[in-house]
């Protein structure tokens, strides 16, 4: 649930990056953190394991100052992708205002993407959120890899709501800000 702090003139939105393990959710946040100036991106918190898998969540607060003196904050979270983190993953979706689904385009991960999307629907439901209406953007990542599933095939399997989708190579920043821009639009009610 977004927060409007009237006296502080601040709006805060919570955005979660969801998707299978190692699909590039943390890489999205790292690129944003490394690209935006310090006045817009706060400290990035990473809770990962020794093999760089997200243990609980990553957190990156962004703030944009609007000409009329308002500050608009986007709190970006990633969820742990591995299925054995089911119990903790859904907790990160609590009160979320928008979701980016980061799919791994490699053919061998196709089924993992499908299962992760099913987890997303289930997790949102358990957090009393409606998958059918929550602001959502799809990102088909790792498009630079060999043996990737065609985008049309991924979109047909994963994007039943026909929300905006973006091809990306998050490690190089390709598609990262386009995705962020689209979820900001959706969460803020621009579409």
């Amino acid at each position, binding site marked *: 649930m977004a927060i409007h702090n009237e*006296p502080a003139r601040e709006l805060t939105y919570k955005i979660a990056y969801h998707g299978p393990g190692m699909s590039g959710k943390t890489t999205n946040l790292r690129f944003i953190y490394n690209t935006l100036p310090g006045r817009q991106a706060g400290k990035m918190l990473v809770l990962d394991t020794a093999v760089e898998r997200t243990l609980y969540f990553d957190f990156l607060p962004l703030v944009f100052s609007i000409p009329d003196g308002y500050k608009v904050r986007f709190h970006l*979270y990633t969820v742990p992708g591995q299925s054995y983190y089911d119990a*903790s993953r859904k907790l990160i979706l609590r009160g979320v205002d928008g979701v980016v689904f980061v799919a791994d385009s490699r053919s061998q991960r196709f089924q993992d993407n499908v299962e992760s999307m099913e987890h997303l629907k289930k997790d949102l439901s358990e957090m009393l959120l409606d998958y059918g209406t929550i602001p959502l953007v799809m990102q088909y990542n790792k498009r630079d890899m060999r043996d990737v599933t065609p985008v049309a095939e991924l979109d047909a399997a994963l994007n039943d709501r026909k929300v905006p989708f973006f091809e990306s190579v998050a490690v190089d*920043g390709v598609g990262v800000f386009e995705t962020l821009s689209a979820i900001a639009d959706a969460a803020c009610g621009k579409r």
Partner: protein
Amino acid sequence: MPTNFLELKTADVELLDSELRTLCARAGAEAVVLLDLSGAVLSFHRIPESIDVLMYAALLASNFAATEELSKKLGVTDFRVIYHEGKKQNLYFDKVSDETVLVVLFKDSNALGRVRLFCEKSIPELARAVEGITKSPEAAGAMTQGRDAADSIRQIVESLKTPKSGG
């Protein structure tokens, strides 16, 4: 889905600030913060500027949420409090409502019983204050600012000129 807003009006903020200030003094606490369990800060008192309150809030809320989930899985009912004991400082969590939790940082020289007593005294007032915060499908006028922020991000996208977007 239209984004739902928690509307913190001036009166809400003043009431929460006042309650936390009073609690902090009575309990002899170093700092207090009121969070919602999604990780957002509703109010805080005596948090030093050197502390990144947003990052701490994300950790504190997730800490409580994870322990609460564990208690559900273990069948523990009416779960409300967590206590972390450090060498010099301690953390005390007390649930205010289904969606909010109070966190108190206090020194080892202070008594846990004192902190607990004054938290219990403050919780009903805080719960009433939280209950009084308006929830609305669209914050009055606020959506314009949200849309302006979305425009700011789009300007960044333009400046980066990264290729290969679709959709």
